[in-house]
């Protein structure tokens, strides 16, 4: 019996099987982490979604841009709460930075977002696929129609440390237990899910080219100090992983099978243990309670 899993869950398992156990199986409540970046993510995701949904193919760039700024302001008020921040100044700074990112994305003069909005087929699109009996599902932020087919975009704060052609080899190393690369593995899982998933959607036609990219809205930011205050600018750019998926398809699906089967079979022993201890434990929310981590310490 198969069960559909999201790239995010699979990646959690790839980070550490025990982490998956604590987070999803036992559902242990970790102390509140700051929600400010989570809320900021919601704000720019929903802004892009709303703008894309409201935009027609031939809308004027200025109109799209104005719309985007209006939506952003509303979304900011809706999702950003003062409690997330220890000072009003910090909140304002984050608002300005995110606003700058949206402004640059929907810049009427060449902003990538103008075309993303005009060509958007569907946003927040729930996709599903199955390969080798393993079901995956996920929500694609934006699917746009290109001249040759479809291009799926996943919007992120930035693409620092994301999967790239230079680092794709590490997927194989992770598979072999020689490296611990959960973030890039996660990117690979996302790529696989969306590339395969959109092919099952009604708007997919045979022969269409399918591409997938991450888009880091705040990939480049600058802070400028002036006598009257500070000025912030932000600029985004994409990172496409379609080719990496094509090239490393076998590895990626082997990784998916490992994680999927592990979850389905309740196999939560952390392996390879040393690598996980070194790489995953330091930032893990559950490190303080983890019997696997504590056991060798106690023994020592």
């Amino acid at each position, binding site marked *: 019996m198969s069960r559909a899993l999201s790239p995010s869950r699979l990646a959690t398992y790839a980070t550490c099987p025990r982490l998956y156990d604590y987070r999803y199986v036992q559902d242990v*409540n*970790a102390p509140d982490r700051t929600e400010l970046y989570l809320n900021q993510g919601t704000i720019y995701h929903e802004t892009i979604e709303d703008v894309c949904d409201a935009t027609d193919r031939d809308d004027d760039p200025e109109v799209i841009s104005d719309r985007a700024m209006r939506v952003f302001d509303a979304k900011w008020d809706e999702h950003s709460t003062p409690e997330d*921040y220890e000072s009003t*100044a910090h909140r304002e700074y984050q608002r300005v930075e995110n606003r700058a990112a949206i402004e640059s994305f929907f810049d009427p003069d060449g902003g990538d977002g103008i075309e993303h909005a005009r060509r958007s087929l569907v946003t927040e699109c729930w996709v599903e696929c199955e390969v080798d009996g393993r079901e995956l599902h996920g929500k694609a932020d934006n699917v746009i129609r290109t001249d040759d087919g479809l291009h799926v975009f996943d919007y992120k704060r930035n693409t620092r440390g994301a999967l790239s052609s230079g680092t794709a080899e590490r997927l194989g190393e992770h598979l072999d237990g020689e490296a611990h690369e959960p973030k890039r593995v996660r990117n690979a899982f996302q790529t696989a899910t969306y590339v395969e998933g959109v092919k099952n959607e009604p708007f997919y036609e045979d022969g269409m080219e399918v591409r997938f990219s991450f888009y880091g809205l705040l990939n480049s930011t600058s802070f400028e100090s002036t*006598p009257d205050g*500070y000025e912030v600018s932000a600029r985004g750019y994409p990172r496409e992983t379609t080719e990496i998926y094509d090239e490393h398809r076998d590895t990626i699906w082997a990784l998916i099978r490992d994680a999927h089967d592990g979850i389905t079979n309740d196999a939560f022993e952390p392996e390879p243990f040393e690598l996980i201890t070194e790489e995953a434990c330091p930032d893990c929310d*559950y490190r303080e309670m983890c019997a696997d981590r504590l056991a060798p310490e106690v*023994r020592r």
Partner: protein
Amino acid sequence: MSDDPDEYPSWFPVPEADISPEPQQETIIDSDAYPMRVLAGAGTGKTFTMVRKIEHLIDEEDISPDRILALTFTNNAANSMREKLNAKLGTAGYDIDAYTYHSICNEILTDYAYEAGIDPDFEVATDAEKYAIVIDVLDEIEYRSVKPNVYGGDGYASGAASKLLNFIGSMKRSGITPDDIDAFLGPTDRVYELADLPDRIENIAGDHLGGRSIGSVLDSLPAVRSELVAERDALGTQGIEESARDFLTRLIDLVDALEAAFEAHEAGARGLPDNAHKLPKYLLGGYASGAPTGIPGELNLELTDHLDSFVSDCLTARDLTAGYAAYERELDERNRIDFDGLVVETAALMDSPVGEEIAERWDYVFCDEFQDTDRLQFDLVTSLVTDDNLFVVGDDDQAIYEWRGAHVANITDELDQAFTALSDEPLEENFRSRQPILNLANEAITKLDHRERHKTLTRIDEPAYDGDTIATVELPDDEEEENSAAQLRTVVQNLVSGAAENLDETYDPGDIALLVRKNDHATPVIEEFEDAGIPYQVAGDLATESVGVGTVTAYLKALARPADEVSWNRVLLMRYRVCDADLRTLNDGDDPLVNTLRDTPLDKFEEPERIAEARDHVTELLDLRDSASLSHLYRELTALTNIEWYLSEQERRDLAQLEDVIEQYGDSAVQPPLTPEFIDSLEHYDSLFDESGTAPTSQPDVADDAVNVMTIHKSKGLDFPVVLIPQITADEWAPSSRTYDALETGLSDGADAAFAEDFVERDARETRRVFHVGITRAEDVLVLQGGSEDRDDAEDDRPVSEAVGEILPSRIPWQPERGHLPLWTDIEECLPDTTADWTSTLAGETIGNVGGTVTHDGEELAVETARDRVVDLATASLNGDLSARAEEKTLHVASLTGPSTPPPSLSHSYTSLAAYEECSRSHYLDYVVNAFSDYQESATTTGSGVSQREIGLLFHDTAEQAAKQDADRRAEWYDICERLAGQRRAEDALPAAQECIDRYFELDLPEYEIVDAEREFELDIGGHELVGYIDAVYRRPDGELVVIDYKATERHRDLADDTQLPIYLLACRDLYDEPIAQAGYAYVGEIGPKVESRAFDEDELEAVEGDVTESMNSIAEFSFSRYTAGEHCQWCQHNQLPCAPDSLTVDPEFEE
């Protein structure tokens, strides 16, 4: 620690009557010259001398003790000074005002609150409160160049809150107010205009100085000069503009010097190295990307950088000053004064009309560690001095707090200026370190530039020593942290095993200190210590990585935030040992875990008794949480859960630090309950306390049973038989400048002082002094680990460096290759001939069997293998598949039992013999193998009263002290008792102990002459050693001596067949010339007051000696297997063994 005599606990004031001052000290003590300054080298007994001088004033000069004020830095030092004076002077010692520089301020401000214009109920702000205030005022910061992020990618450390906290600290320590900064910086626009100045200078250099020969560059220099002059003349003459103007003047001097040098070159009058024509453009920052080809990067002299970092600090300050002002307002509003503020307020008060009145409270002011005082403290001290009666000790070679605002010149030039009649006396005779160590210290410190006064340390009365004194360990080439740390582990193992020939003796872990330049140097070594099982204590560290501390902290976190299920899981797993299946049951479902824990029927669990225990504890603690103070809750937590029982010795040590933090949390009379804020403050602990942890105001407690690990800064004033200093390399000890250095100096010393000094050079000097402090901590053995990197192109660089060094005019404070401190090379030059290289010997391999071996089943196993074997056997036993054969083989630990299992050497005492009489098993456990006490299921209420033992101890110690101080009045006994109770936090026992004193004074004893008290003895009877203490020996009015043992208990002794008193009388034969036959008990407990004594004749004593010998002979065949059950089992610490009657439990109030 070497200076604690073993027989006294650390808190015990030891009179130093038997130590006579050395001639140098005597001169100082007897002198009546004031003001006097004593520049005293390390280990020369400066505090001793100061204390003696105070005594001398009181005893010989009839100065009233309350007219003397003694100031020092740490509470530890102030307490120890007070104790020494008390011990020597008796009650007069109490009247001397011994304070820290901060506590005297607190005292003065409390007394003169009205005059100071502050609320007399003010409190000192804790670090946690300061942090909370800073968070509250974040919105007052005028964010322009400061990013508003409260935390950055790496947490809070880089966020706005930390920035503000550091800024306030830097400014306030130097007495700089927000108004001062406002006035210095002027309007924002002006600061921003100045921010462009470095760029403009660089452009001037870039535009004009690109010539390719000395001649062409020389031709351009006048133009550069005139543009620089124009820039300078456009600047104002106040504050930041004056600083910038001064900087430009210095650059103009430089241009003139360059011009002169180039002209000389063109005239053939001087040579210059290749590429010298690039120097002007380089020095003025004209090259966009650092040093051009031909100019060595190590030169590190792009001078515009200094202006650039200054204006950048000014921009930051412009933003933060409003936050600083708001912080001050907020402190005021909350009626708090922070630590620095105490001195600020007091200095201001002393400047007011009432200052004179305050100063008149004291005739003499004594100051210790004067080199660590900052500018404000200097003013404070001078304002407290009347009639020049000032005595100052300190050591400019040990000034290591300059970077925190200490003003080293206070002890040299500033004192000279403030007190023209100042007389100087040296202290150079050292009582601590072996001479080779002092030779190195003397040699190495001469490399210090600008050293004002020269001292040469000489060891007095050096004991014989046959072993290496200074040892070097060359760092391995591979730069692997573990390898260099392993060297030190090996060194410590060898020191502790003592088998190596190079060592004079075997050292205990407590004799050894690892003193580090920075915390990072300690981390890998600590890991090695962990692996090797070497006990250690890190001073002032919260030990958050310690598993045991983590569990205790998790318990507090869970109680503070019950929704934190991670912490609950931790506690359930590690304290209650709840099994995985039961944890899953608890985590299952949507209800919060803590509710599930409390509500789920126990039969749902596999191990219900563990869940029940956890449930009871958690329920009780949660009920207590909101009403109890944090300390109280913590005490209940540890008592109820008996959590310490689950901790290793190392973890208990680690936990002590957390306890300190808890005790000190909240400064108000009523400590607040446990709150999430407290948990947060723990999480910020590291970033918050990093700096204040190394303030001169805190001195750590020292472990006597573990390797002490601390920064050199924290080790000041301490000494250890063995000192290890790791990672001595130019890189790891590289000096640096600090944020706001130039700004702070400009604000303190005048705007034109901002660029008068190279702060990196200043730090380099301080680094040498830090090293000096480090090595002079060592008594017998100093182990230095270091190495020097090869600098590839150093040869080629030299001509350029030298030429620049010659050309730079005196007004340019920055020298070539600044920041490169070749410490290891310098040390190697200074090492005495007797230095041993331990790299491939004591740092390379362990000598002898470190940790011993374990034999099992005919195999000889290394300790680690044996440990694994034990774990495997335990696992097998848990799984029920332990084979009978394996079970039969005992593990034979050679280092414990020796090859032929000789008995451990035993030392007997009356109590151990009494224990043996009662039950040989309990004797075996308590006195032979020092077994752990049983796990105690503690009572849920701890308030049942004070232990008899504590009362008895308090009374005994009071009597002893009273005897030593010749205190024969009840009031004096009360005072002593009260003080002792305070010191050991036994106030609860005080009333009962005072009742004992009352009863004592109803006896005849106070009328007798007291001959001896708490006299230790060692009796050799039949080849056995019998040790103990005699409470007191009195001389009765009829002249006969009588031995008295105080009994504060309710148990009556029968004198007829008593053995304790005869043992004492036997001991007295060796101790006193006069024969003593009388002995008795003085009952001061509730069954008293009465004295019962009698004479014991020689026959009785012989008989007791015979009995005792027989017992001790039979104890030689001690064994675990024999036991006697009975009444005494109820007091036995091991009565959970099957030998005890079932009905008994451990009584925590067990009396003896």
